[in-house]
């Protein structure tokens, strides 16, 4: 079966609704399918990657640490739209560091997060075969 390029488009804030958590569940399952996987975080979706999230006081599942495991699942193409960050007064430093180890480069630790312009993200979208929207 030919490999397809899957893009997960995340546009919703976490905690207020379940879309972020259930999107992450698809990504983790999907990682087993040997397709090319890319994640995009746009609009309020960028809030999913904020540091220091701790949902213990609202009693819901604390899924924020799971993003850091994505690298181990070979999910390391993570695009964040710069315009969305800027509008919200955020920079890359406000996001969790997400990294992966490059097998082909002596397991060097590399950054999974690419902060890109709208124009660059539009190209990423263009290259995909399947778009899943959350």
């Amino acid at each position, binding site marked *: 079966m030919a490999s397809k390029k899957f893009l997960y488009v995340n546009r919703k804030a976490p905690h207020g609704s*379940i879309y972020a958590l259930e999107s992450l569940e698809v990504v983790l399952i999907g990682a087993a399918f040997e397709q090319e996987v890319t994640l995009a975080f746009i609009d309020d979706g960028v809030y999913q990657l904020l540091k220091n999230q701790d949902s213990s006081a*609202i*009693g819901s*599942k604390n899924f924020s640490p799971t993003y850091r495991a994505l690298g181990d699942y070979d999910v390391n193409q993570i695009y964040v739209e710069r315009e969305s960050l800027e509008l919200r007064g955020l920079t890359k430093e406000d996001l969790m560091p997400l990294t992966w180890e490059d097998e082909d480069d002596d397991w060097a630790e590399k950054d999974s997060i690419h902060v890109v312009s709208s124009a660059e993200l539009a190209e990423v979208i263009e290259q995909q075969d399947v778009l899943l929207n959350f």
Partner: protein
Amino acid sequence: MKFSIMVNEGPYTHQASDSAYHFTAAALKAGHEIVRVFFYHDGVNNGTRLSIPPQDDRNVCTRWSELGQQHELELILCVAAAQRRGLLDEDEAKRAGKNSDNIAPGFEISGLGQLIDAGIQADRLVVFGD
């Protein structure tokens, strides 16, 4: 003070039910009276006894049942909203010729009039939704 609570969204999907739960628990702790918790729109989905959340997550539905039994709360699901969405008690299931029902202990199905009455009886009606 007397509070009524309206919950407009189902379990897990939106935070509304969680926020309403924490608010209700805090109001009870502060010694306030809860006239009624009224579940409307998708809020009726909080009243299912068939939910099986992951073990590392809270059980939204059971938690309402337990708070209700502990404090003798009226937990009312709107009948029209519930029927549309497939939430039935034993009587209604029988009447509609359905072979099963799914509402959880402590929840009751009743009419929309209970919402208006909740607004009349309480000093404050607080609405949680999407």
